[in-house]
């Protein structure tokens, strides 16, 4: 039986401590203002989901 990871070796990039370097490169590709707005959108989205879950 083929391993679950077969075919995706080399398609990930982690630091030695297991940090996803693709996320870091994406964040570094943005300006500081874009980073702030991206993070803020993320938090607001999480809050919206939590609020919706609390109502249902």
């Amino acid at each position, binding site marked *: 039986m083929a391993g679950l990871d077969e075919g995706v070796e080399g398609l990930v990039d982690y*630091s030695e401590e*297991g940090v*996803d370097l693709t996320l*870091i490169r*994406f964040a570094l590709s943005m300006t500081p203002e874009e980073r*702030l*707005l991206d993070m*803020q959108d993320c938090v*607001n989205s999480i809050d919206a989901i939590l609020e919706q879950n609390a109502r249902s």
Partner: protein
Amino acid sequence: MPGLDFLALLQVLARNEVEFIVVGGMSAVLQGVPTVTRDLDVVYRRDAANIQRTLAALQSLDARFRIRPDLSPNASHLESTGHKLLNTKLGRLDMLGSIGQQLTYEDLIEHTDETQVGEFRVRVLQLETLISMKEELGREKDLAMLPTLRATLAEKRRLTK
């Protein structure tokens, strides 16, 4: 609590000419660390003139202590080195008189960079210093962030080589 608007929050501080340094999670975010934070932590200069400018900014933000919503910060609160954990109409704002081993604005200023954020420039605690402080503090919540902070610093250095 209304939706966060950290950009507008920073803008209010900047327009009121408050002297401050962005520290904590937001300093990490501005420098490219892929993390999230729910508050803006700043260390501010505690001289009389800056306290007056800070008070004006906080009043326009309708700032209140998070555990005492009936109480607004005053000059006496801002003169202290302690942490003032506030709610404002634009999001949570922590006004810190000092951080770590009682490090003040004056102690930290040489470990900051000026960063353009939208239309204005803000002073941000350097990633190297943020990492050192978290290593010194050694609390679990600080240690948990270290791999991501270190990996971001290494990637930044690699990109600027």
